[in-house]
């Protein structure tokens, strides 16, 4: 197990570096002068010598390689730089916004997990029957609906009396308010649920075909116990895999959801940062997102071992 973990950690480093490099090259290639973002209105008014002075101060006149190495060096000390526009360190911006995004992701995960896994199991109990057809059909439709549209339609029918009922606030964030969190979580979760539902159904059906079911039945176990203790536990592995890959979707989807619902998370900071070409903020949020995503995958790998002793004992 520890060797397995060690190998996974070693793989983690080159992948993280790869992502960092790709992102750095992309932001380096950004066509507009970053100083335009730094100086705003003053960019045109200030004499060129002053502009060049600031450029030198920020290290933006150095060749690509030394800028890159400098960034990596600072990153290793957890220094993501300062925003060009806001008077804040990038790490502080992330620190302030991250909990909000986490809340949203957790809400989405909860909605998606309960509805997705639940409906998947329900569909798997009698494959080919009407409930199965209905649920798999719904899952396909759910996966085809764009997040932003789902958000708008739900806003249309659930936040105003004109076409529906005003059950939830249209948008916004209030600390500790479940009503504000409900709609964004639902939007984020429903899309997640459709993918999860299909995987859980397939995994449960696959688990059903195994010989251990026969043994369990011969032992005299009831169906419920077989499903809970044997099938579900075996089906958890593929479900977890998809769930961990879905974290990337949750991160990306939260950008859209936060924008629509005016939710003060990372995505809500990313879009204006891109508009204003605030490179340090863009880089910081993206690298943070990618590393977070990889860390979640790593944790899931460890979870495999806990759930399934066969994986733990291998090698």
């Amino acid at each position, binding site marked *: 197990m520890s060797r397995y973990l060690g190998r996974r950690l070693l793989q983690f480093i080159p992948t993280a570096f790869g992502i960092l490099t790709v992102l750095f090259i992309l932001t380096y290639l950004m066509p507009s002068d970053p100083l335009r973002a730094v100086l705003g209105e003053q960019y045109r008014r200030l004499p060129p010598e002053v502009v060049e002075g600031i450029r030198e101060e920020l290290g933006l006149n150095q060749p690509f390689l030394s800028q890159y190495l400098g960034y990596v060096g600072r990153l290793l000390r957890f220094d993501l730089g300062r925003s060009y526009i806001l008077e804040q360190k990038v790490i502080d911006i992330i620190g302030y916004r991250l909990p909000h995004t986490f809340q949203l992701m957790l809400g989405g995960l909860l909605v998606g997990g309960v509805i997705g896994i639940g409906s998947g199991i329900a569909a798997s109990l009698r494959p080919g029957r009407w409930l199965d057809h209905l649920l798999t059909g719904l899952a396909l439709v759910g*996966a085809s609906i764009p997040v932003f549209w789902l958000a708008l339609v739900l806003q249309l029918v659930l936040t105003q009396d004109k076409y529906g009922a005003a059950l939830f606030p249209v948008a916004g964030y209030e600390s500790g308010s479940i009503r504000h969190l409900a709609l964004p979580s639902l939007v984020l979760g429903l899309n997640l649920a459709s993918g999860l539902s299909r995987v859980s159904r397939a995994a449960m059906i696959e688990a059903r075909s195994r010989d251990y079911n026969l043994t369990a039945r011969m032992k005299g176990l009831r169906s419920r116990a077989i499903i809970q203790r044997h099938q579900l536990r075996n089906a958890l592995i593929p479900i977890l895999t998809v769930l961990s890959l879905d974290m990337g979707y949750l991160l990306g989807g939260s950008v859209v959801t936060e924008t629509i619902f005016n939710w003060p998370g990372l995505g809500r900071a990313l879009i204006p940062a891109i508009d204003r070409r605030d490179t340090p903020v863009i880089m910081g949020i993206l690298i943070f997102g990618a590393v977070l*995503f990889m860390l979640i995958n790593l944790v899931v790998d460890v979870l495999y071992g806990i759930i399934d002793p066969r994986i733990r004992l291998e090698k």
Partner: protein
Amino acid sequence: MTPRVAGLADSRPSRKRIFLTRPRVLVGGILIAIWLCGALLADILAPYPPLEPHYSHRLAPPDAQFLLGTDELGRDLFSRILYGSRISLTVGVVAEGIAASIGLCVGMLAGWFGGWIDDLLMRVAEVFFAIPALMFLIVWVTILESTPLLIFVGLGLISWAGLSRVMRAQVLALKSMEFVIAARSIGVSQWGIMYRHILPNAIGPVLVLIPLGIGGAILSESILSFLGLGITIPYPSWGSLVDTSRNYFTTAWWYAVFPGAAISLAVLGFSLLSEGLINP
């Protein structure tokens, strides 16, 4: 004739029967056909030019004159959605074409050569797998401009990794088959074997995933458009229609609802087709 993997050829239903015996394939095919017709025949089918304003009918609800209502300048929404289908379908097909080409090549090379080539390529695939797709696309288009070509390439770049893994697994399974060894022993070159023997036998499981990928690309483009970063020239894509509709969303429900429904129906068609082909 290329040799087929034993047992596969016999159990395969004919093309006609696939459509008749699998309702998902049939429904998916019909949906795709409808959108294809809409896109190709937009000039004939659209009741109005997509950019023609009718100032006395601004934000008119759906009626006999304007089937799906009008937008803030009185332009016919039905016509705009028809023309928008051209953009969405093109994005889906071209982007997924790029992704499939990359995925097939990478999977083939990694599976066939193995060793460090495999390690390197799969590590690269992992990097692309680990970058959250939407975040990558947002950065991609803001940095490199939202031209159609760059959107195609960006979408292709972010979605090949999964296909390459499927392809690699296929190649690995086929590599040690007898007909490959036979071809080797009579002196067929490596590239010849890859092209003539491995590719035709390995491509099936990749091909059935392609409609799903097209749907995914349409969805991603619509999200970009919704964020104001998608294709708007010469006519707005479906996503940007929904984006503009947000300003009138309390007064004109049809403006937001119909373009979004168009996206969902197109994506649904492609996913149904893939689903039906993968699971009999």
